[in-house]
Structure formats: C-alpha cells, structure tokens
C-alpha cells in the first residue's frame, strides 16, 4: 500500500514537474507545480511528517502558488513565450547536463551511505507526542533563535515588496 502510494505520487510529481518545465503557458506551468507540491505533501504524510505536509498544502500550494498565479494574471502573461530562443544552442546541453547531474547523484546514492547518527525521534515517539506538538516544542526551545530571526526575514520581504512593487512611494 505504502509502496504503491509512493510510486503513484512519485510518478505524478515527476510527470507534473516535466510538464512544468516544458509547458509553454505560464498558468499551466503554475498549475503543474501545484500538482507536484500536493503529491509531495502526500509523500510527507507517508514519511510521518504530517505538520509539514499540512503546511506544504496550505502555505506552499495554497498561498505561495496563488501568489504566483496572481502575478501571472496581473502581468497578463497568459501567453506563450516567444518562439525565438536566443540560447537555443543551450537547450540540448542543458538537458544533457541535467541528466548527467542526475546520474551523478544516483551514482553517489548507489554507494554506501546513511551512516548518520540515529536520533531519538522514532516514529513511535513522534506519534505519541504528536508531530505538530513536537515541532511547536522544538521551535520554542532548540530553534528559538532562527524562529525569531525569521520574523526579520519576513519583515524584510514585506518592506521589499512595498518598495519594489508599490506604484507610488
């Protein structure tokens, strides 16, 4: 069951990703990306990361991608890219490079790995406490500093958007 689900979701995500990069229409691309994101969210659930999965769907597939779509619509980019590609010569090498990169990573993955230290958060342990609660706990203990500082990041982003995108300052 788990394996089937994995393979299905993997196939969906990869397929959607392929469409994403080859689809001419930006809106369609965005939709394919959402598809990928959702299938990854499913995989998160398989990996017992329920909170992350939820965030993935709500924040990522929901908020962020809507933002994308919104901008695409705003800029009225619902048209195909120009046919002429000044860097046409790069297309094939780029794909070859991509394949090469993938093969390289696979080659390395094939070698012996996963010697990492096993942590204390086994599935059972996580499930007894609850994934979300655990994350919450960690956020305010171990990860307090980055968590707080992320606020600065978001603040910066807000300022940035205003500065860059507001029509009149």
């Amino acid at each position: 069951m788990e394996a089937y689900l994995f393979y299905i979701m993997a196939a969906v995500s990869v397929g959607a990703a392929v469409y994403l990069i080859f689809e001419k229409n930006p809106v369609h691309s965005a939709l394919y990306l959402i598809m990928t994101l959702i299938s990854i969210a499913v995989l998160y659930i398989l990996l017992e990361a329920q909170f992350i999965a939820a965030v993935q769907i709500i924040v990522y597939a929901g908020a962020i991608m809507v933002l994308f779509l919104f901008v695409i619509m705003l800029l009225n980019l619902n048209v195909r890219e120009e046919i002429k590609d000044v860097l046409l010569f790069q297309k094939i090498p780029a794909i070859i490079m991509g394949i090469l990169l993938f093969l390289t990573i696979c080659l390395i993955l094939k070698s012996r790995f996963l010697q990492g230290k096993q942590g204390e958060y086994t599935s059972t342990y996580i499930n007894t406490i609850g994934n979300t609660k655990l994350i919450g706990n960690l956020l305010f203990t171990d990860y307090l500093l980055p968590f707080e500082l992320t606020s600065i990041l978001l603040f910066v982003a807000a300022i940035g958007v205003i500065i860059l995108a507001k029509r009149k300052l």
Partner: protein
Amino acid sequence: MTNVSVMSFNILSILPILTLAGFGIIVLMVDLLSPRRPGDKNFLAYISLIGIVVAAILTKNSTGTALFSFHESFAIDNYSLFFNFIFLLSTGLVILISHNYIKREEINYGEYYALILFSTIGMMLMASGADLLNIYIGLEIMSVSIYILTGFKRSKVTSNEASLKYFLLGAFATGFLLYGISIIYGSTGAINLKEIAGFIAGKGGTVDPLFLMGMGLIIIGLGFKVASVPFHAWVPDVYEGAPTAITAFMSVGPKAAAFAAFFRVFLTAFGSTHYEWQKIIYIIAVLTMTVGNVIALAQTNIKRMLAYSSIAHAGYLLIALVAANNLGVSGVLFYVLAYTFMNIGAFAIVIVLSQKDDTFIQINDYAGLGFKHPFLAIAMTFFLLSMAGVPPMAGFVGKFYIFSAAIKSGYVGLAIIGVINSVISVYYYLRITVIMYMKEPVRDFTSLTLSPLIIAAIVISVIGTLHLGIFPSQVMEIAQQSSLLPR
C-alpha cells in the same frame, strides 16, 4: 522532551543583532512619521550610524568570551566578533557614502537604511551561526535584503535587471546549498557544526561519497556568495546594475559574511576532512584569481572592473582556506578588514565622481583627475595600490599574511599562482592611476558634490588603508587571537 534551559537563551549574546533590528525599525518609524520630503532625511543616516555605533560597543563588550548559546547554535567567539566589527564597519562606511548618493539618485527612502541594517543582521548571524540552519537563515536575511537593495532604483532598468539576475541566480544557488545541507544532514544526522565534526571524528576522519557530495554542494552555495569561479557570473552584472553604494556594500559585507561562514563550516565541521576538500578549493581559488584578474584587464567600466577585481580578491581569500591554518584564518580576518577599507574607499570615489543615473563611471572619465582633485586622486591611488598589494598599503600586509599561510602549509604552487595573479592585477589598477594622472581630462570636475559624510568615509578609508599597512601589528594580534583553530 528537551530540557528548556533558560540559561541557554543568552539574550546578551544577540544584543548587537537586536540593537540593529531595533534601530532598523526606529528608522522606519521615524521615516513614516516625518514629512515625506525626499532630500531632507539626513537624520535617518545619523540614526542608523548611532545604531551601528551602539551595536559596535555592545559587540566590543563581549570580546574575549567564547560562548555558544541557543543550544550551541550561536557562537560568540573572537572570530565572529571580529567579523561583526567588519560588518559594522562596512555598513557604517556604506551609510556614510550612501547618504548623498541616494539623495542624488532620488531613492532617499527610510527603507534603504533599514534594509542595510537588516542585512547586517543576516551577516552577523552567518558569522556567528554554529549550525547550518542559522547560517542558512542568516544568509537568506542578508540576501533578500540585498536583492531588494539591488533593485532599489526601481525606475531604472539596469537596477531591475541586476536585481532579477541576482535574485534568480541567488535562489538557484541557495537550492544547491540547501541540497548540500540536506545531504550533510542525511549522512551525519546533525546540522550543528560541532556535532558534524564530532561525527566525522568518530568515524576516524573517513567519509563516504555522499557526504563529500554534500560538501561539494555547500561549496557551490557559499562559493556563489563569495563570487568564486565558476559561480561568479552574476557578480559583474549585478555590481554594475546595482546602485553604486549598494555595490560597495555587496562587495564587502556579504562577501565577508559568506567567507565567515565558509571558514567556520569548513574548518570546524569539515576540518578533519581537509584533505578531501582542499583540492577543490585549490582549483577554485586558482580559477577565481585568474579569471577575475584576466577579465578585469579588459574592462572599461569602473564598477565592472571593481567587480572582477572583487572576484579576484575572493580567489586570494580562498588561498587562506586551502592553507587551513591559524595564519590563514587570521590572514583572512586581516585581509577582509583591509579590503573593507580599500574597496569601500574606492567605491566612495566612484560615487563622488559619478553623476546622476550612474553616468561618468567609465574609466576614461577619470582622466585628469590627478591634478584637478589631488585629494580624491591620491586617495584613489592609495586604494588601488592597496588592492594591488603594494606596500606600504593594507592590501600588501593582507597578501603577505595569506601567502605566508599558504607557504606555511606547503602550498607553494598556489602562492606562486597567487603572486603571478597579483602582478596581472597591478596592470588594471595601475591603468586607473595612469588615466587619473597621465591623461588629459575629458570632462569637467566642477559639479562634484562632496558632502562631509562621504569625505569622512574617504578619510576613514585612507587612514585605515595606511594604518593597516604601516602599523598592522595591533590589528594583527587581535586577528591572531580570533582564529577559529586552536593556536
């Protein structure tokens, strides 16, 4: 459950960061409350400067300690403090040179100062980050601020373009960095640098290919930020398009921060695998120096030329990383400090000499400066000679430091390539002095506006450049006490 230890949250240790954040918000608030008349916001610069001074004082108070707070994820040691000083210094100098510039370019918004301050926070976090997450967050705070600052002249296509290029490539490279972090995490089970080091030590220093791939990906991510070849391509375009003051900032602060992180990660976490990564950094260092210097020869735009020069300097700094000894680390600290003075100084001159919309930034526009404005010309000459590594300027001592480190660790070949490169670099630095002193002027220099703040920046830079060159010992000793490695 983890024990929640109050002692672990040492607020004092992040006081400088909080100060900067506070002052950033104050700047925004004051800006909001004050009448929106561009050109009349001197006080914002002063507020920011006060913030920096306060932060610097707070930073100084914690010198001499070696403290790891926030669950060992935030390091307050001499190393990070030294870097923090460099960041604060560069930010301060950039604010000094910005003040007049942003008025001229009509981008005199409070957000400018706030973003610079916030980006400094990111840098400090990178230098202090003792785990990969903090470094990552710091990197993002810094980068996002600078993406915005790069595009700050939003009505200018060049600025937009630079911003977009930087953003896309930056995000792209961050992807690699993250991938690397995830693989390091996967193969060690830790994101804390000390734990990673401990893990490798536990394995007797041997690592598997996966780990090495992670390391390689981190090299890409950080190598992008320090502008090393072949991840350097964004640098000239972005440096050229960004507002000049921000270019000055970018060439110093973020680069220094990236180096801070680079050294901390590779010397503390990956220190025992030095043998594995030194070859890669070796090649990158050679490429970076050479490509930077060689292409700089062909430039006519001074901002672009300084961009390539900054690539080349990244190469020199990487030599110290390859050497991976005490001398190298303190050398980098010294060099970056020296570089801060000379590079921001040079950009200050560029700003003074350029006109609205970044006109007059071709090298040929400098013709005849030498006898029209002797002070500016001599200052520029000092900065350029310092960058070329000619004594008695700071850059010379910095190079001395770094090449010493290389030779001490036995990398004579690298040192030789380094010095050959510095000979090549002499050419294009000299060319500017040639044009300043030995060519007839093609423009008139009457309309230069020299505000007191920018003069202060130039004077500070000159003094710093000369002082570090002639009497370097005090700073050197501090740098040597700030080494990451056990002495």
